[in-house]
Each structure stands twice: as C-alpha cells, then as structure tokens.
C-alpha cells in the first residue's frame, strides 16, 4: 500500500510536465496572441512587446525558460493582467471555487446518497420512480437554466437571496444549489444502481442467512460495497468542482478559477493558462489517488501491492 502511494506520487511529477508541455504546444499553435486586438499595433510597438516578453528568443529557448518556471513552480506574471503574478491569481481565486465546490459537493452527497439509497430499498415503488425522475430532470436540465430560474424566483421575486456576486453565506446558497443539482442527480442514480447490485450479491444473502438484522446488513455490509461506483465518480467530481465551474461562476459572478481559466485561454494568456493547467492536473491526479486508496477501505477484495 505504502509503496503504491509513493509510486503514484512520483508519477504525478512527470505527468504534470507532460501536460504542461502539450498545453504549451497547443497555445503556440493557436492563432493570435495576447496582444492582438481590434486595433492593429504599429510595428515598433509590437517589437517592443516581443522584446519585453522574450518572444524574440529562439523557440526552444522560450520552451526551456517556460519549463524552468514550471520546475520552480513560479509561472511569472500574467500577460493580460500585467500587475498580477500567476501564483497569486491562483491563490486569490481558488478559495472562491473551492468554497463553492465543497458545499456543492456536500449537498450533492447528502441529497444524492439518501435519494439513491431510498430508491434502491423501495425499488419499483412511487418513491423510487419519483426520485429517479427528479434525478433524470436534474441531470438533463443544464445549470445555465437552473441558475437563472432560481435567481428569478428567489432574488427578483422573493428578494430572499442576492442575485449574484460573492459575499456571505446568503450569496452562496443559490450557486451551491445550482452547481450541486447535476451531481446530486448522478450520485443518486449511481447509488441506486450500486446498491441494487450489491443487495443481490451472494455475500448479502449470506449475511441475511446468518440472521443479521436488516440494519446491520444494509449499513455495515451493503452500503460499503454499493458506494464503490459512487466513490469512483465523486473523486474526480470533487476535483472538478474545486477547480471551478465556468457557468455557475459567470451566472452568479463568483470570482473563481473556472471563469478565469476560460478567459485566460481566450486571451492567449500563456503563463496563466500554464499555471492553472499545472495546478488543476496536480489536483485531479491527487484526487484520483485518494479515490484509489479509498477503494481498498471500501472493498476488502481490492489490494494494492
């Protein structure tokens, strides 16, 4: 187990370098650059910019310089927001995305697990159909529809929650609900499917045959096994939620990382893109590792050597 974790940790490093290199190549292949705009720049001004940002260096030098920055985990200053270092941008804006993400994650877990659990226990009853239809709805209605509807109802009509902008607890209610909807729905479906499969499995029959009471069967034996598909989904989902989601951040004007990431690509803001890509890839790989480890706890049949 321990050596497995070490191996996985070690592989993160070259993987990040690879991801960053590929991203860098893609940025360089994309047409346009960070200073192109509606107004064409006189040649002299363009030359000054190229000189200032080292774009006159041979391409392999530019790559090496970039890689050097990545290795030092210092991505330099954003090309667009010229007075803000990339590391600081990530530090400033990640907390917003993370707050939003963690709450949405918890909400999705609570709703999804309970709905899925109930549906599985009461299979083919109204409760099952109801929660599964809701789940289907939650999964198919995109959050750019859910968000505005919530705003119309709770902000513009009832004036309960603010319509947008980060701030206190009240500001986060609507975006958290919006963001969690799709995840809650998915978790509910996964929980139901996982539970149903486990409930039909031999070891549950054995447990019941042993005469264990239903509570123990369900919570001690069935739930653990039934959760495996959920865990393999929620691990990467948590990473994605933490990384920020463009739509919800834009609709609710939350200054999170997701929106900034998209803007940085549209702006061809190379250091910022690379910084966020590196950060996110580390985040996602770390969560995948955590998921893999938790398998071992949930299912005694899984072992890592």
């Amino acid at each position, binding site marked *: 187990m321990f050596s497995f974790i070490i191996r996985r940790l070690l592989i993160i490093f070259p993987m990040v370098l690879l991801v960053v290199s590929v991203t860098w190549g893609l940025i360089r292949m994309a047409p*346009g650059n960070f200073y192109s705009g509606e107004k064409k720049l006189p040649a002299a001004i363009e*030359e000054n910019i190229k000189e200032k940002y080292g774009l006159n260096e041979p391409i392999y030098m530019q790559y090496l310089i970039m890689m050097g920055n990545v290795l030092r985990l210092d991505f330099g200053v954003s090309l667009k927001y010229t007075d803000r270092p990339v590391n600081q941008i990530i530090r400033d804006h990640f907390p917003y995305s993370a707050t939003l993400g963690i709450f949405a994650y918890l909400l999705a877990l609570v709703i999804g697990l309970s709905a899925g659990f109930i549906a599985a226990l009461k299979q083919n009853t109204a409760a099952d159909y109801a929660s599964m239809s809701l789940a289907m709805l939650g999964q198919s209605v995109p959050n750019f529809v859910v968000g505005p509807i919530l705003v119309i109802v709770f902000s513009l009509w009832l004036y309960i929650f603010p319509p947008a902008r980060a701030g206190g607890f009240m500001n986060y209610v609507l975006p958290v609900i919006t963001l969690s909807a799709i995840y809650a729905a998915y978790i509910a479906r996964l929980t139901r499917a996982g539970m149903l499969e486990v409930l039909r499995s031999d070891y549950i029959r054995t447990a019941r045959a042993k005469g264990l009471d239903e509570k123990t069967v369900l919570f001690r034996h069935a739930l653990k096994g039934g959760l495996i598909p959920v865990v393999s989904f929620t691990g990467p989902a948590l990473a994605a939620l933490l990384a920020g989601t463009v739509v919800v951040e834009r609709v609710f004007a939350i200054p999170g990382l997701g929106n900034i990431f998209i803007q940085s690509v549209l702006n061809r803001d190379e250091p910022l893109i690379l910084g966020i890509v590196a950060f996110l890839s580390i985040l996602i790989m770390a969560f995948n590792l955590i998921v893999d480890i938790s398998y071992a706890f949930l299912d005694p049949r899984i072992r890592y050597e």
Partner: protein
Amino acid sequence: MTRSSFGQARVSVALIILSLFVSSCTSSANGRFYGKTEVPKANVLKYVSGSEPESLDPQVPTGQPEARILMAMYDGLLEYHPKTMEPIPAIAESWETSSDGTEYVFNLRKNAKFSNGDPITAKDFVYTLRRAMSPELAAQNAYLAYYIKYSEAYNGGKMFVQDEKGNFLIKKDFDPESGGGEASASTIGADSGFHQFIKAPERLTVASDTFTLAKTLEGDDKLKPFFKIKASELKDSSAFVSQVNNGTDGVSRLLQAKLGNALTGCAATCDETAKQNLIDGLNKILAEESLNSAENTEGLTLSEAAKKLIGKFEAENKKIADANQKLDQEIAAAETAEDKEAKTKKKKKPLTKFFYTNRVLLEGYYSGSFAKMPLVTVKGEDMGVEAIDDYTLRITLYQPAPFFLGLLPHQFFRVVHQRTIETHKENWVKPQNIVTSGAFKLVVNKPYDQLVVEKDPNNWDASNVKLDRIEFYPLDEQTTMMNLYKANEVHATYNHTTPAAWNEVVREFKDEYLNHPEVANEYYCFNVKKFPTDNPKIRQAFALAIDRDGLSKFRKTTKPLFNFVPEGILTKYDEARTKIFAEELKANKISAEDWGKRMFDAEQARRILTEAGYPVVKDGDSWSCPTFPVDKVSVTYNTSESNKATAEFMQSQWKQNLGITVPLKNMEWKTFLPVRKVVDYQGLARSGWVGDYMDPYTFLNLFYRDPNDSSTGWHDPKFDKMLDEANKEIDPQKRFEILARAEFLMLQNQPVLPLQTQATNWIKKPFVKGMYPNPGTLHAWKFIYLERDPSKWDTQVENLMKVNDAAVDEQLKQLEASQKAFEANKPAASKPAAAKLD
C-alpha cells in the same frame, strides 16, 4: 417520505414555480421602473464596469472597461465633457496653441495634488509621457502620442544619423515628400535651449534593427553614402583579404574558391581597382547562385546572426516569388490585354542579394558599427514635451494635428507619480502602494469581484466631487448584471450590456435605457486585392443590394450608415460632408436621386453585376446569378450572436436581391484577427472601429498610406494627400471639407460596405444624474450624483442629452471659466486658431 406525501409535494413545488414564473414576467413589464428602484442610503454609486481591468496603470490597458475606472483614479491635462466628450480643463486650467498648430502651451493649476499630497507639476507630466513612450513599457496605446515630435522615434528605438562632421542629418533632405520637419517661425511660451532643438527642422531617424536599417539603405541612394556599406569603403580591405586567405572556416573557403583572382589582386596592391574587383567578385558569386543552396553551404560555418539574416531575406524572396508565380498564372488566364498589363505591373522584383549578403559576410569579419559616424539613439529627453517651469508645459508636434487636444483626456495621457513608480517598480499599482491623481482614490481591489474608489480630499476639484464612493463591479455576463440591476444592487452598467433577448422589454423603460449614437461604426471590408471583389463593380453591386434600414430595424439598437464616419455625433463634420458631397456629385455628374439610391437599390445592383460580367437572371419568383463564383466569396466574422445575426441578414439580402448565396464563416476572435489583418479572407470580413477621439480623422486615418489599417488592401495616394492637406489646414470647417472630400473619394471606390453607426446600449437608474450616453460612454465621474428627491429623477425623458441639469451646467461653467478668461485676456496677435475642437 411516504408515497402520497411525496406526490403532493411534487405537485405543489411545480405549481409554485409555475406561478412565480408568470408573476415575475408580468410584474416587470407593468412597473414604472425596471426592477426595484431605491436610492441607496450611502452616497455610493454601484457600477458594472465590464471585464476585469488589465491593469490600474493608466498607460498600460487599452480597453474601455479600464478607461472608465482609470478616469476616476487619474486626472490629466484635460477632461472629457460629460455630454459631448469635447476636452474641458482639468489640471491644465488654460492652454494656448501656436498659430501653425504645432505647439501647445498648458498652464497648470497650482493646487493640483496627488493622492499622497504631493503637488502635481509640469515635470510630472514630462515624466508621465516619457515613461508612457519608453520602449521598455511597451505600451500598446503609444501610437496615440505619435503626433508628439520624436515620440514615435523614441518608442520605436530609432536613431539619429550624423554626417562626418557630426551634424545631424535632416529628414526633409532625404524625404522631401514627407510632411512636417520644417522649422517653424511661430512659437509660443518662453524660449529655451531645448525649445531651439525641438523647433529645428526634424532630424532624420533610422531603425536600430540592422535588418530594417539595411533594407532602408538598399532603397535609398541618398542615404547610402553616410553608411559604410560597401567592401570598398572598408577602412582596411587588406585585412579582410588576409582573413579570408588565412581562414579555414566555410565562408573563407567558399570565398577563396570563388574569388580567386580578385583576392590575389587586392592582397597584392589593394588599390581602388583591386578593391572594386573584390566587390565585383563578391557580388558576382552571390548573384549567380544562392548562398543557401546545398552545395554552397556545405561545410559553411556562418555566424548565427548571419544565418538569421539570410533566412529572413530568403523567406522574403520566396514570398515574392510565390506571389509572382500566382500572378503569372492569373496573367495566363486573364482575358483582356488591360487585365494582363495591370497584373504584370503587380509583379515584384526579388530583393537583390548583393547588399544583404555582402553585408552579412563582411559583418562577420568586421563587427561593430555599421555607420561611419556613431548613430545616436533617440531618448525620452528628445521628445517634444518640455516643462518650461513648474506650472507651464509645452508640447511640440511634428505637424499640425487639430484633434490633439481631443486626445488628451484619454487615460494614456493622465498623470502618474514618479517616486511611487520608481520605488515599487511593477508593484506600484498594488492598493498599499498606489498613488493616484484623480477625483477618486483606490481603497479596495478584489479582482473579478469589486474595485472600490473613494473621494480623494487631496484632489484639486474635491469640492465638486459629489459621490463619496464608487464601487466598480468587473462583470461581463449580461444576464447577471441585469439581475443585479433589477434587484437594485447595481445602479448603472457599461456600454453594450442589454442582452438582445431582453431588449424588447428594457427599451420600454425610456428613462433608464440609453440608446444614442456612438463614435463607432460597423462595416464589412472587401478584399480589394483578391478576385472577384477586386472589381469595384462587384463591390458596388454587393453594397447596393443591402437594405440597411431593414438591417437596423432587424438589429433594433443600431442606426443605418451609408458613409464611413459615423453620423449624428460630429455635427460640424456632418454639415461639411453634406455640402461637399453635393459639390462632388455635381462634379461627377451624379444626380442626387441616384446618390440617394446608393442606400438601397436592388435594381441597380443587378444591373451593375450584369455589367461586370455576371448576369442576374429571373428565376421563377426569385433571382439567380449562375455564373458568379460563389466559392470565391464568403463573409468572415468573429464568433458572436450579434455578428451572426447581421451576417445572416446580409446573406438573405444578397440571396433575395442578387440571387447569390454567400457562405458565412465564423472564427474565434483571436483566430480571426490575423486573417483580417493581412487581408487573407475571401470576399468580405466584418469589422468595426471605435474612434479614439471626437474627429473624423480617427476613422479616415484607417485608409491612410499603404499598408494601412483598413484591412481591405485599398490605398490611394490622392487620398493620402488630401488627409495631409487637411491636417495642415487651420480653419476647422475648411479642414472638415477636405476630409469630407477624401471620404467621398474613398466611398466611390467602395473598399468597405458601411453598415451602421453603433448605438449605445446600457441602462441606469433614474436617480443617477449627471451621467450621459456620450459618444464614447466615458463618464467624468465628478459630475455624477444620486438624486434623493424622486420628483427630480429623470422621468419621461425622450432624449437625456437634451435635458439640462443645472448642477452639471454650473459645474461645467466653473471649470471652463479659466480657459475662457485666458482667451479673453490674450493679445489679439496670438489668437489661437484651433484651440477648441468641434
């Protein structure tokens, strides 16, 4: 949860949501105001400012969202008039223009202070401008100040050239065509050593980059003698020879093999004849074969610089060769002799190798300066900006630029604090370090969330600043800001913010929705260099076939445009244009009726297209044009809903009126830009231009010289001449007339298809006063206040620009008094000619 209760809950939830929907939709349309409308308790304006500001350094960002924020934080010599955007006094309380329009003297007020209490003096403006133009800052807006003498040279890292006696070469000796550079007799303000230098005839400047310099020299026989560019002018040609003869590197071996006799001759005597032989020999081998061909370069060890230079040179020649080859094909395919001749003329000669390659080879041996006398780099100190004393600033231009005062309120010219910048370097704009000069100072800066400024008691005009604070929200999601507005959490938005889908509803609220002409246009460029839009008739037919009134009805927020300079804002220019166009029509024997029809005349469009060789025929109920090469034309635009809607409208018009279905092509913004920039699109491309200042020149300048910024490939020396002439004209109305004539000339050639004058499209609460939909939607924040008395709110307003606000008028009168008094007291002799912009 039991079965039944769940079912009930579901039904009731559905009902609630449904009812909320219905009621929220109806309530908004019936209300007197759009959403909740209450004056906030605090004297604070909440304003949506658009995308996140790139920087708080006024000299760096280029966008309007930044401009609005920076206008609050920094003051300049002049400020924008809140309604007309004409320049009004700010830190300069009065100013004077020399009679030839090339010199401006500004008298600064003595109580102007930075936010830390330091006085603002003329020296601060000198520092600001030198920093703004420095190549190290690499400001994208630097071109705005290129009218200031030597500023372009400084920004471009250019160098002055001296002759052998150390005298600087004068530009007009080498380029008599170029405007300006004359020593001018008219002058204002006290004389000084610097002033004599800056008023002297303009010095010649050359590029510091060797490749560009080499290119300039190659084409300029007059200039060549001042540079040692030939082998014969090497001080020590025998050294060169011995180096080649003893050399073991590739170049030497090549030269030994090829030059043979010439080298021996030179080594033996090194007289003029021998030197000439050497050069001839060098040129000969280079002319005969490419240095880059495999057999020649085998074993060569060229220096990196040389390789790079040769590479650039070869690439350029390849481009020319490719273009020529294409032309050859077209010539072969051309039908008329005229066409053939025209195309033959377009062929370009390849660059001669002699000079470049000789230079490369020689420089490898004789590195060091290339000129006979040291070239002198143009410094910030050479720029035409001078502090005559602490409170008098003089700016000298290359040539008259009557719109120059109109540029000065731009954030690029607003004053910054030298010590702060020098102490904190790039961190000077951090909230804990920043020192500002405007009516408001920075308190909070949370990127992507909010930027808060508060009234600066140190500001010279603090007593007239009415708001305590402004909260700027950097958002650009339109629906979100509308929601905030309806919840009264935002009091006004920036320009172009009402989503198209909401427009129908929002425009009903006349007191809040602001739809006024903007100093911006939208047009389609024609590629006048590519078949088939290189044919003016085809361009005309395409333009005539568009019903632009229909377009503006369809787009709802726009006003149709048939000329290039936006209509309805520059009223004096509109007058001149009407007059001149009437004259031109007479001269060109075009009846007013025909001219009127240029707006939309499908019949005429079909006739012209038929004349051009593509007959439009009746095909049942519709038209068709079977011979038109549809595959050679398309409309390229950058991806956006509104651009798509316009393009589809245009497409249907052409289909309906000409029977041509033009394909549409959308591209992501940054992908689109380079394609349009190098005129690499087929047929048409979408474009728009926002004026930098309130003058037609900011639009017409797009077509000035070749290559120009119009992205059409069109260019006409006659047009250039008219623009030069116009800027030398002192009388503003006469100047406009010349510009109008130039515009007419350009429109006759139809390199563009004007679509519309852009219109402002934003909302503000009725209690926000002193804020106007001026042509740039740039607000001088100190005029803005919150009206607590609902009876004084802007209600039932047809045109906000025509409503007089006593508070604003009084404030303006106070501000303008100093300049008026100054002009009245001046001796009649030095009456300024173009002191005020119209």
